[in-house]
């Protein structure tokens, strides 16, 4: 029997999904749906937009207004939706390559504008859909099919990037920390402006295999053992934090939202002409 969450929010006739067994994208999607449920949003007023990649297939399974766009451009499509109908809750799902390589420009500008969109990056440190090439978040010296001798690019810290570009709510969780992820997405949905949630996923098929990370279970265990919540991190020494993954709420500083700012212009012009 599918759970109530699945029953209420998934297009059950489209299941099972295309994801590999053990892929982290499924649990992340479930956490997002759970956050939507807890926020009590009207399904008709939720629009989920994605780019291209394994992660970006998520909206097809979800019973909302859903838009599967082009690689890297999801935030730009989403920006148009939000501008045309600011009352729609716009959620954007992207992969790490989708959001920080080909779509990096749209990402920083959506952050900068503080437009009311909740962006969720499924970060599996690899290009999953195209078969395991390295991405802007592949750790230095790790392998991908296009980095057979080890990747010499330095990886992006997506949360730092988003926070410094102007996102007003930023958080990180992992596929293992599903409840934390749900609460972060809930807070993000509550933020009027632009929110970015980095959901650390796992790709056992490509990243795991190429880098000898064992099974999906081993990879989940790694997340469990190596993630440190920001609240606990303050009490730890820099040595103890070496190689750890900071999770939790990383930024929460609301500012005026973009479409509201635009509405003020429309209202002011109207008044001036009366």
């Amino acid at each position, binding site marked *: 029997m599918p759970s109530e969450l699945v029953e209420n929010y998934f297009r059950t006739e489209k299941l099972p999904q295309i994801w590999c067994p053990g892929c982290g994208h499924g649990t992340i999607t479930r956490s997002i749906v759970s956050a939507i449920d807890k926020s009590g949003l009207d399904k*008709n*007023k939720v629009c989920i937009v994605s780019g291209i990649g394994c992660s970006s297939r998520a909206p097809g399974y979800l019973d*909302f207004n*859903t838009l599967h766009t082009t690689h890297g451009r999801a935030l*730009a499509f989403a920006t148009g939706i939000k*501008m045309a109908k600011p009352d729609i809750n716009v959620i954007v799902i992207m992969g790490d390559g989708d959001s920080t390589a080909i779509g990096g420009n749209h990402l920083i500008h959506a952050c900068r504008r503080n437009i009311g969109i909740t962006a969720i990056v499924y970060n599996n440190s690899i290009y999953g859909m195209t078969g395991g090439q390295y991405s802007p978040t592949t750790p230095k010296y790790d392998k991908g099919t296009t980095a057979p001798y080890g990747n010499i690019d330095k990886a992006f810290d997506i949360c730092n990037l988003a926070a410094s570009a102007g996102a007003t709510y930023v958080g990180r969780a992992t596929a293992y920390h599903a409840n934390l992820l749900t609460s972060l997405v809930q807070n993000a949905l509550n933020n009027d402006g632009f929110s970015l949630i980095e959901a650390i996923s796992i790709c056992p098929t490509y990243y795991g295999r190429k880098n000898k990370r064992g099974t999906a279970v081993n990879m989940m265990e790694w997340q469990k053992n190596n993630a440190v919540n920001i609240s606990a991190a303050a009490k730890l020494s820099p040595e103890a934090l070496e190689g750890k993954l900071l999770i939790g709420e990383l930024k929460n500083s609301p500012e005026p939202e973009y479409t509201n700012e635009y509405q003020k212009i429309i209202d002011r012009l109207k008044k001036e002409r009366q």
Partner: protein
Amino acid sequence: MKSRVRLMQGNEACVEGAIAAGMRFYAGYPITPSTEIAELSAEKLPLVGGRFMQMEDEIGGMAAIIGASLAGAKSMTATSGPGFSLKQENIGYATIAEVPCVIVNVQRGGPSTGMPTSPAQGEIMQARWGTHGDHPVIALTPSSVRETFDLTIKAFNMAEKYRTPVILLMDEVIGHMREKVQLPDPSELEIVERKRPDCSSEEYLPYKADYDLVPPMADFGTGYRYHVTGLVHDETGFPSNNAEVADKLIRRLSNKIEMHRDEIESWEEENTEDAEIIILSYGCVARASKSAMNILRSKGIKVGTFRPISIWPFPERRLRELSLRVKTIVVPEMNLGQLVLEVERICGCNTIIEKLNKVSCEIIYPEEIVRKIEEVL
């Protein structure tokens, strides 16, 4: 009532036409010689409750107008050469996902940065085949300021009617030229709105076409929760790997425009009844052709003009008819010969076709056309 007679630029007429047609969202990135379209949209849209956005690049501009259109707002973007190249991938998206929108390209000298402030007509073929894959295209070319106003409205109307992106292919001369125009009263304009579903959300099949091959389109946020993708999809809107579904979709998209060719095709002809020579041109060159025709007529040479207004689809049937009775068709273009390829395809067996090409990013003068015709006589 305020007089509607004004001196205005082609780019300005484009914005006036867009707003009259119901444009309520514009997104783009500045580029010469189209920038005035962005600037005037920024000024005018909030006055009518619409919204303008300067995006981070042209790709974003194209994406944003598709998003806004899906949410129900009539949307437009404008650009020139380099930006038109950047928009191509998402123009294809709008085609397969059947999202109405208008893309203005004010042509300048290319390739690459080329001659940014000078006119050219180098994107005739890019307008047709710029995005990958088989796809239909509607592209309209104005040759005066007033016509820019009219064709912008027509572009929106066709985008809405056929659920497809429509390209308004201007050139720098038309974009920047100022003419005295009398704009029609808004009440005289025919404005088309997209077909929206009248069935319940449970019954709605977002890509099930009606008899006219166009499926009704629901705005996001109105209770019809459906899926839109750039992947091949069936009537439900969900992706499919089925060969038959792919074949059916790609053919329907193409036939959707083909079937309405009679309504879409438009052209202007002058003195073709007795013409032995026809000058076929479009955009700013058509103005020179007219003068050339008058000069040659005064010398007793029977010249007529043919100006395709819808470049794509090309007014094929009419040109074929004419080609059966003229000796020569002269095709002056500000490129190395692009639309002439279509002319040759349509009537190369019926008549002699002469090219006149200029790629110095200068306009073609009437005398040049006259000289060419006297040469080939």
